[in-house]
């Protein structure tokens, strides 16, 4: 049982991060905190990809002396990391749009609390 938890600790970590992110988005009233939850959620997905590509005792995918290319397990798979560079850029763009919307909302309603906001909108 303990082995099951310890052996998959990266996945448990991802799962906990996803849960924290969802909690922040759904239950926090402040829009900025919601956005922070959003960032944590995206970071969890990114960390999942990074941990999937992790390999013990392997090196970067650059051909080196003494490490035969024929032995694939000597090299890391660089693709998930590369994909995550794009995903990080997407995350930053999302964060930017979210903050821009928050600024607009604050200028119009002078509050970022969701309940007050809904009262003012009605």
């Amino acid at each position, binding site marked *: 049982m303990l082995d099951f938890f310890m052996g998959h600790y990266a996945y448990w970590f991802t799962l906990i991060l996803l849960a924290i992110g*969802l909690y922040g*988005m759904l239950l926090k009233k402040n*829009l900025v905190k*919601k956005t922070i939850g*959003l960032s944590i*959620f*995206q970071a969890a*997905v990114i960390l*999942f*990809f990074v941990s*999937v590509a992790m390999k013990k005792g392997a090196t970067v995918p650059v051909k080196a002396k003494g490490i035969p290319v024929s032995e694939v397990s000597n090299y890391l798979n660089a693709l*998930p990391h590369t*994909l995550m560079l*794009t*995903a990080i850029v*997407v995350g930053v*763009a*999302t964060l930017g*749009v*979210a903050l821009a*919307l*928050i600024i*607009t*909302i604050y200028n*119009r309603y002078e509050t970022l609390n969701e309940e007050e*906001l809904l009262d003012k*909108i009605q």
Partner: protein
Amino acid sequence: MIGSEIPALIPITYILFAILIPVIGLWKRKVTWHLALLGSGIATALSAYGLIYLLQTGETIRYFFGGWSPPIGIEFVYDGLAAFIVLVINAIAFLVLIHSKKISQNEFPGKLTGYFAVAMLMMLGFNGMVLTGDLFNLYVFLEISSLSSYALIAIGEKRAPYAAFRYLIIGTVGGSLYLLGVGFLYTVTGTLNIIDMSAMLPQVIGHSSVIAAIILMVIGIGVKAALFPLHGWLPDSYTYASSTSSAIIAPIGTKVAAYILFRVVLFLFGVELIDAALPVTTVIGIFAGIGILYGSIMAIAQSELKKMLAYSSVSQIGYIIMGLSLANPFGFIGAILHVLNHALMKALLFLVSGSMRLKEGHSLITKFDDSYRKKYPWTMAAFTTAAISMVGLPPLAGFFSKWYLALGTIENSSWLLLAVILISSLLNAVYFFRILEKVYLRNPEAEQASEIESPAVQKNEVGFSMMMPMGVMALGLLIVGIFNAYIVDIIVTMFPAGF
């Protein structure tokens, strides 16, 4: 001549104009609308040419970016289904952009340059999503189109930014869940290319990662497609967005997401394979059925035209996804035909509501009365066409997609879904004829009041640039309805393997 480069040329046209519009907009602000029109016009012409080319040669075009063939490189797959959807979304965007000239100057003056540049970016995202043959590339295009649509929705009424923020939160969760699903599939198969992966999946279908991936991807795409329990973002976003934004996002955005669901369920996994792992088609069939009824009932409860149309969209997306869940040829024909029909109908209805907002300053159903038929005879005629088609009376287009869906339910003996189609048609009739009755039938009380006051009702029709796209769509509904057999002949060539 340029046949084999078609799949790359369409997105490149949009990205070119997305860059050109702000640059030229700095120098001359008035030409941005013309540029946007030119951009989507070129893309429409290219996709029309592409579809004809494809029908003549009959071969799927696979375009490798940078000459790197998959699985190393990224490819665009231009098959019959992709060509058809690309033509539909580009043509609708072109017509809506023609209509947007006056509305854009009225609803968001001073933001024209940014608006049209972002609209081009959004179309880039949608076209890329349809064309790409790579699951991660699809995620990137999904986020491009989503980020642009958040921006387009935020331009609108006072409440629009908050609606857009909510959509952003929900939409990003959907996108992230999809990405997580792709990650699970990648760890098992080691490829991201759809064609490669579909060849490998039969060997690993029982793996728990694959099952998790199916759930995550279906939920993630379901959010974007506004499948019933995940539709929460849709009504507010469509209602408070600017008329042009909702007219361009409502017919296109959810359709493209539904198309991605088709790609994943029918082309990547295949119905038999995915149902062997999980009863996916049954589950989404049930949710689609509930969504159809829920959307129709909520639409009846609305007193605002745009909000009513938004809820009606939830219901109509249900039809398309129900066609997928039937997983037989009739269901597939009905769903793809409904993508075209609903894109035309919903765009037309949103354009009418936009015209009403421009002329009357509101689109409240309660304020509609029989003076409208004198003031706006042609707009109301177009509205009537779309409404009747929505209800599903022959010979208008809406009838035929429902007909094929009904045939599909009969073939599967899913009588409950057949009942859902029939009941929802009646519900559609309730909420559309309510408006038609106000506009066309004589109201005795109003008649008496008008004898006392008798306000001079003058013809106050919208201008040609707004009337033309509405007329084209209304005629399109009639033509698609009458010549649906030819379109079905084309759709029959698009069946996924195993049908």
